[in-house]
């Protein structure tokens, strides 16, 4: 009797979990935990806190995986609505920290509503396309774009370029996978290229500086270029096999700024070298390939586009983060998935993986 109960519990626990996704995610989390240890053990060790974050992330992932896609769909509208309202509240009453209005004070704690939109925007848009699947017209793409543009503009205005890019990318991937015609994509590309000078004038001084220092980091070695110079030195001096765990001089002598959060890849790369980088990239690649396969095999439009969007968002995180740390992209606040210290991003990304699992494991049921 008890044995049967345990068996059922085990079945219930693993029922909607995708093995490959879980394995690769846990591997990356393991690497991340070890790297956070190295990045923080000099000052205040954050390893335990990060392990807690990961546990919470895994629970969230499991929970989301249990929810079938057609039920997930229902969260789209309310989440989106709450998110946008909160963003408007931030715009009106937000707390200003370091010149950016990103936080909303609840008295006892502060929340960052833009994080919600990372999940809400793709859910909302995927639901929107799914609802209009049969009668998909050009105007639906326009409306979807407007639905994307509102939170994007509010976040960019805060300003929080990193989150805006991630939200914008997640929404765009939904529209793209929903079948946005190529001629529109091409047209948008042309318009975007033409808008560059205009956008340039709208950027804040520090944002412009970040882009300029990308072209020549040495132009401002102690200011905006400092992050890039120090992280490329860390990566370059790591060599083929790295300096060894806890032996990175750039890391432990505090030359790398933000070394346990956005710049954790510099720490990893200095201590593990090119070999470690390739392994890490392969892990991310495995995650992305698995996600794309899940998307390709998904049974409904909603499942397809949400899985595609989540997967490419993950890719965007990785590419933008590694690109900025290694000095080929401007510095924007994008964490490295499952590596960077911080609970919010971890939970958001875990929910994304959970969505992929949900799409994968509820497929058969839908077919039946």
């Amino acid at each position, binding site marked *: 009797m008890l044995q049967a109960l345990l068996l059922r519990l085990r079945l219930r626990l693993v029922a909607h979990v995708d093995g490959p996704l879980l394995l690769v995610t846990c591997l990356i989390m393991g690497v991340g935990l070890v790297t956070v240890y190295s990045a923080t053990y000099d000052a205040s060790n954050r390893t335990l806190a990060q392990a807690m974050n990961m546990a919470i992330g895994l629970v969230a992932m499991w929970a989301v995986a249990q929810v079938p896609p057609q039920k997930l769909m229902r969260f789209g509208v309310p989440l989106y609505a709450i998110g946008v309202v909160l963003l408007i509240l931030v715009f009106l009453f937000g707390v200003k920290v370091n010149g950016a209005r990103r936080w909303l004070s609840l008295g006892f704690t502060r929340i960052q509503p833009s994080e919600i939109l990372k999940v809400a925007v793709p859910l909302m848009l995927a639901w929107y396309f799914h609802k209009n699947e049969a009668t998909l017209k050009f105007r639906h793409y326009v409306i979807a774009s407007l639905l994307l543009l509102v939170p994007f503009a509010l976040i960019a205005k805060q300003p929080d370029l990193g989150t805006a890019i991630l939200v914008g990318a997640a929404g765009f991937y939904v529209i*793209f*996978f929903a*079948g946005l015609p190529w001629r529109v994509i091409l047209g948008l590309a042309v318009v975007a290229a033409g808008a560059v000078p205009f956008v340039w004038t709208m950027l804040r001084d520090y944002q412009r500086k970040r882009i300029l220092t990308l072209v020549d980091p040495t132009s401002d070695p102690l200011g905006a270029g400092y992050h890039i110079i*120090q992280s*490329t*030195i*860390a*990566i*370059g*001096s*790591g*060599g*083929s096999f790295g300096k060894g765990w806890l032996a990175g*001089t*750039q890391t432990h*002598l*505090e*030359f790398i700024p933000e070394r346990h959060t956005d710049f954790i890849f510099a720490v990893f*790369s200095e201590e593990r*070298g*090119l070999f470690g*980088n*390739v392994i890490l*990239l392969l892990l*991310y*690649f495995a995650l*992305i*390939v698995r996600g*794309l396969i899940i*998307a*390709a095999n998904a049974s409904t*439009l909603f499942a*397809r*586009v949400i899985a*595609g969007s989540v*997967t*490419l968002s993950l*890719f965007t995180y990785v*590419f933008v983060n*590694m*690109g900025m740390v*290694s*000095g*080929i992209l401007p510095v924007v606040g994008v964490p490295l998935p499952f590596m960077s210290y911080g609970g919010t991003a971890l939970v958001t990304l875990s929910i994304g993986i959970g969505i992929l699992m949900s799409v994968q494991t509820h497929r058969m049921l839908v077919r039946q």
Partner: protein
Amino acid sequence: MLAGRTSLSAADRDLDRFRFRVALSGVVVVLAFALLIARFVHLQVVQHDYYSTRAEDNRISLVPIVPNRGVIVDRNGTVLARNYSAFTLEITPSLVDDLEATIDGLSRVIEILPKDRKRFRRLLEESKTFESLPIRTRLSEEEVARFAANRYLFPGVEVKARLFRQYPLGPIASHAIGYIGRINKRDLEMIEENDEAANYKGTDHIGKTGIEQYYEFDLHGETGYEQVETDAGGRAVRSLARTAPVQGNDLALTLDSRLQEMAEKAFGDRRGALVAIEPSTGGILALVSTPTFDPNLFVDGIRSDDWDLLNNSPDRPLLNRALNGAYPPGSTFKPFMALAGLETGKRTPGQAIADPGYFNFGGHQFRDDKKGGHGLVDMHKSIVQSCDTYYYMLANEMGIESIARFMEKLGFGQRTGIDIQGESEGVLPSPEWKKRRFRRPEQQKWFAGETVSIGIGQGYNSYTPIQLAQATATVANNGIMYRPHLVKYITDSRTGQKTMIEPEPLRILPWKRQNVDVIKKAMIGVNLAGTAAKAFAGASYVSAGKTGTAQVFSLKGAEYRHSSVRKELRDHALFIAFAPVDQPRIALAVLVENGGFGAQSAAPIARMVFDYYLLGKLPKGAAEESDVEED
């Protein structure tokens, strides 16, 4: 059916299109990751060496360890210059945004006086870039602790333990010892010319004058280095390797600080100079230039009011009169003239002249001090009584060329080569000198009348006290001339080995012994029965001397009366002497500016110096004082 088929195929087409886009995304991901890997290969393989070096440069800094400067002692081991360690509060201006605000903030924690600010501003103007400059020196323990507690408020400010130079005897012998000061641009150039730049990293003081300057590279030592791992904030994390500095070499001087002190006191508040030389070695026993100054004032940057006081004083305490003052020797020139007369064969000792009290030449009357003259004057008497007429005639007969040739060998008008920089040459008059000295042809010509006053040490004659002392020592030493020097030996700080500064004979003058003896005998006569008899009454040793009075300006025939002439126009008093005559241990030249007659003001100083050096006897009234100073 047909509709169903088309709708099915539309759904299929949608799925195909979706899958195509997924595959396309996969390709983009592969390309993007390939780009990242290419970037990593570029950084970690291609440019690995470059970035490794950058990381090492980031990490390791070489911190120079400044060596302790060598100590200077006198011939008896009395310390003249030493080091002591003290805490200073230093600001690195390049690390501070608002200097004034930082100093204002600091003054709330540690007392900072307006004079400290003034000095800091001066240092700031003349400093090298990126060095830290002291805003306060000699912090007390309590002040150090108070700053340490507030340190985080003042980035770019730190407390450093530094060695300071100290001159325990204060103003005594300051012209000989000199002083150190902060390195300025000119010093930097000198350091670079000598290829010592690497060794002076971290050093911020350098010898500016005197022994401190001349023996700078002996005293400095070798800078050590510490390889320190530093973090991004520039804080040293740990030491990786250390090369110990080598302390500078110690110097022992030939100078006798007690003799020096006694001699300086003997001048009282009069301006003047005294150079005492050991004739058998050229070692300087005392090098006096009064008034003196306290070299300690210069060590951590002289305060501007102190500087103004020293620099603008009419007594010019910073002028080293012994080496840089040039004076007509007056009658102290006569023994050398007499020797020249004997050596050139123009005179024999017994040859006498009848002195009417004047000498007429070219329509001009050169007068003797003594109205009516000295009567019949031979060489001995000419020195003992200081007869001018004798030397007017001798000079006229010898001619300027002959006089200049002889005096040049005695070192007149040349640098003696003493181990202090910046010695003056003085003027040894000769037709060639005049040609060099003047531009207009009518001024360049030498007139025979000018030769006449050269004979009594007037006219164009102009020599430094050290030249006079060297010439006196050379006569005392029977023609063997040594280079005057202040350092007796250098102690190698590594081996403890002492390198003696060997007496360096500059010239051996082939004088006939009996000629020299004539001069010495006459100079003994000066101290026994002549112009200095009063000053040397009752001396228990046999000394030889010659008084001199140098005209500061010509009275044009009017009689000179000491008291009626303004002080700065009064004659300079001179005296040269050596003792004991048969085995001279000390030879000296004394000059008292505007002191009047040499016999009155200069000779008594020489007597005190001799009594002290030869007999250990202190002048009356000085004994107790000196004992107090001793401790």
